[in-house]
């Protein structure tokens, strides 16, 4: 019997607000432990929470961006459990009445586009951080409550994902939307995006759900994929041996790439949720929602469609260019300065992205500016720089910045268009490769490319390709 995985993700993201969810403490990373705290987030006796308006606006923005329903009434609820990093002994979250329900995220895997429906999006607060056995003594635990109260969105997908690849694509698509709309930086390394995976198996084609397990707290795309693969494998093994899946919380061991049971859920956890009596139900009137909607930036899908129409790009190019908002904005800025969208799209889609990949960097982390790239492309257009030299300049512009024209001069990268010099180079190449010349003359046209390459190499890539081709053709025919 073959099995089909049924996967749903619960994603927690830190919202990009200046202050915490229920108090005025600053939200930023790397502060001295327990210095971004106040009576409210320390849960001192008598302190009371007040919801952060900015966080509410961001939650609504996220809801609108995924096409969810924004509820005019939602309720903050207490999730009660004891843990030292949870100062109040409960987390303020939303339960029966979340701010957003529904919506979906479009993913593409192996050329197939699917919309993954969302169950809900709600607001909550993060816990603090435990620091175990560092510095002083191994048997001590310390609490850093700087993070306690940081605004979170929990985004819950329907169990509609069918593979690790789909889960990964979903996470990336979700992260891209959240970054586009500036709701979160969603940096997994900083713990701004964390993911829990719910996974069960069922016989392929069946519509009955199997017993699910939950793999908690995955903090990189690679781990999410690897944990899903591992858990599918584990559950398949159990089922194939006639065993039964036990509902449990699992942990993933990234080194061994295996999942193991952390805690068996005999009964569902009882968090004794109830509406937080310190907070009144959140009322969002149509005007407030409209205000957020009006400020909603263009989303990736809309931008892609516009790029196709407005700039005449292929769907493929448009899709590449909207991958991140900085990249899309960069494309438009260069196009405005340069004039030819197609050329710009080609360069950004191929060379800029390639150079970024080599450097393992994001565009915003380089020194490259739109005016500089535009100027460089104009040098290529006029034939003053060969594409190959331009790629070299592009690298410099990324790493150090500068003016393309001066860089070309300083590095002697002007295209060689001195016919005499090129003719000499062509003659040397033909003399060195008599066999290839024979083959060309015998009708093997593609040998021309090889000979072109040889000439280019001899000139250090600075030869104007058009001129070389012309001279070669003349000599070979002559």
């Amino acid at each position, binding site marked *: 019997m073959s099995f089909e995985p049924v996967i749903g993700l619960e994603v927690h993201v830190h919202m990009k607000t200046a202050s915490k969810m229920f108090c005025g403490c600053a939200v930023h990373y790397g502060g001295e432990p327990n210095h971004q705290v106040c009576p409210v987030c320390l849960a*001192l*006796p*008598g302190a009371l929470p*007040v919801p952060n308006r900015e966080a509410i606006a961001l939650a609504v923005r996220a809801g609108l961006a995924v096409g969810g329903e924004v509820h005019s009434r939602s309720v903050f609820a207490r999730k009660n459990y*004891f843990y030292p990093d949870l*100062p109040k*002994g*409960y987390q303020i979250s939303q339960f029966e009445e979340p701010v957003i329900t529904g919506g979906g995220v479009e993913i593409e895997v192996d050329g197939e586009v699917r919309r993954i429906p969302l169950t809900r999006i709600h607001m909550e607060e993060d816990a603090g951080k435990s620091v175990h056995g560092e510095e002083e003594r191994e048997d001590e635990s310390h609490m850093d409550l700087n993070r306690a109260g940081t605004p979170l969105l929990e985004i819950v997908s329907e169990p509609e994902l069918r593979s690790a690849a789909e889960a990964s694509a979903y996470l990336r698509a979700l992260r891209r939307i959240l970054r586009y709309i500036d709701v979160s930086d969603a940096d997994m390394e900083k713990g701004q995006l964390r993911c829990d995976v719910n996974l069960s198996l069922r016989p392929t084609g069946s519509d009955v759900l199997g017993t699910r397990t939950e793999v908690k707290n995955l903090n990189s795309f690679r781990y999410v994929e690897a944990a899903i693969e591992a858990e599918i494998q584990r559950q398949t093994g159990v089922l194939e041996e006639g065993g039964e899946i036990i509902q449990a919380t699992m942990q993933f061991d990234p080194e061994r790439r295996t999942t193991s049971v952390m805690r068996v859920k005999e009964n569902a956890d009882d968090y004794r949720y109830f509406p937080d009596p310190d907070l009144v139900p959140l009322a969002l009137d149509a005007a407030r929602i409209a205000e957020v909607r009006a400020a909603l930036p263009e989303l990736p899908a809309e931008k892609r469609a516009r790029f196709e129409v407005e700039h005449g790009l292929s769907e493929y190019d448009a899709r590449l260019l909207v991958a991140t908002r900085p990249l899309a904005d960069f494309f438009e800025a260069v196009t405005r300065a340069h004039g030819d969208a197609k050329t710009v799209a080609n360069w950004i889609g191929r060379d800029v992205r390639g150079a970024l990949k080599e450097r393992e960097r994001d565009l915003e982390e380089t020194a490259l500016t739109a005016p500089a790239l535009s100027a460089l492309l104009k040098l290529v257009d006029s034939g003053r720089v060969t594409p190959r030299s331009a790629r070299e300049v592009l690298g410099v512009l990324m790493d150090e910045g500068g003016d393309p024209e001066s860089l070309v001069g300083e590095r002697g990268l002007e295209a060689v268009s001195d016919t005499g010099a090129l003719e000499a180079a062509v003659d040397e190449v033909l003399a060195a490769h008599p066999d290839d010349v024979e083959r060309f003359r015998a009708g093997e046209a593609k040998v021309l490319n090889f000979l072109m390459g040889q000439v280019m190499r001899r000139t250090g890539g600075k030869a104007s390709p058009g001129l070389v081709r012309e001279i070669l053709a003349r000599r070979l025919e002559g």
Partner: protein
Amino acid sequence: MSDPLGGVAELRGALDDRRVSAVELVRAACARARALDLNAFTHLREEAALAEAEDSDARRARGEARSPLEGIPVALKDNVCQAGEPAQCASRILEGWKSPYDATAVARLRAAGAIVVGRTNMDEFAMGSSTENSVHGPARNPWDPECAPGGSSGGSAVAVAAGVVPAALGSDTGGSIRQPASFCGVVGMKPTYGRVSRYGLVAFASSLDQIGPFARTVEDATLVLEAIAGHDPCDATSIPEPAPALAGALSGDVSGLVIGLPREYFASDGADPEVLAAVRTAVAELEQAGAKTREVSLPHTPYAVATYYLVATAEASSNLARYDGVRYGRRAERVGDLLDMYRRTRSEGFGAEVKRRILLGTYVLSAGYYDAYYRKAQQVRTLLRRDFEEAFAACDVIATPTAPETAFRLGERAADPLRMYLSDVFTVSAPLAGIPALSVPCGFVDGLPVGLQLMGRALDEASLLRVADAYQRRSDWHERRPPEAA
């Protein structure tokens, strides 16, 4: 022993005429607090209060008195936070903890020039009706030291009744201001829910808790209420309206005002007949003054105590989770693992009544019981609120006994929690409905005070104060002094 302090109006006159200074008042209050053997105070801050009194005297000398409360000594129930002071809530678990911040009500009192002299005894975390559930031992009723002062704000009621301070703050969740006011023969008021900020009030049951004043006269209570009321952005449940001006309500004129008498509260088996008689006499006095009376009905009253103990304990079980020994207060020593630390810290730190309520509240919110108890209680709460809305269509205020009896003897109910809970029968409905209510002295039975409770429409503190003040103009119960404080 120093003499009892007069009321705010009297002290204010003496301060204005330089017959007394704020420094002298603070000294007198502290001396008296120490001299009386009533266990009303858990902490005196004499030194700090004297320094503040000096500043206050200087302000007055410059003609910069901040309000009618300038230089007036007041006391705080030990669950209302003041910066730099303990707020132990009569619990072992908050041993040694000092608040780094002022409750909004305290900040406002101090901004008005009032001087906090100390903190008063209470039932642990405001859970109780006798001030016996205190790590400091019970407070005593100045009318009979063998009797309870009521609770949970017993210490504040005693401090005012015994003339230590002319006014004090308490907190009321199910009657914790009004019942001790009744037992000690003083005025105590629970404002409309949201009228006074809860920021800095150590939570018992968030949807019910309100800070309110104790004083010997309605006039003094009104001054304190005006100082502490009004919207506070630090409390999301605070009513977004400025503090009401209430002094104008104290005209003594109640002609045409309709007083509702709910038949469920006057049932012959519901209260001590002599208490009922005293309340009826007081209502008759108000009729003499021009008020009208009519019978009304609050049909869901029999469910109020049960509803109250479900809602209040559910919220308390969650509100008290923060006392875990991790960040502040008391942590059990030599603990094993984390769970052991929680268990022992909380077992050692909380008293029996607090534990009972945490257990009850945890049960009420548990999966499988939530609908039957918590949700059902919320539904009944809505019905109770509607009862009042309907009753107030036919009357302006509702008059009842504050408590079904006068002060009971210390120890008499300690072993019978259910009977203790039932002493709240007349006071729990107002907080469940969120409406204002007060208790004003209306007589004595066997030498112990009786309280008249007045309940009003939400935000209509003015009518309650008008009626209670009119009654005090026509009675002298509030001028009698308890023997222990003579």
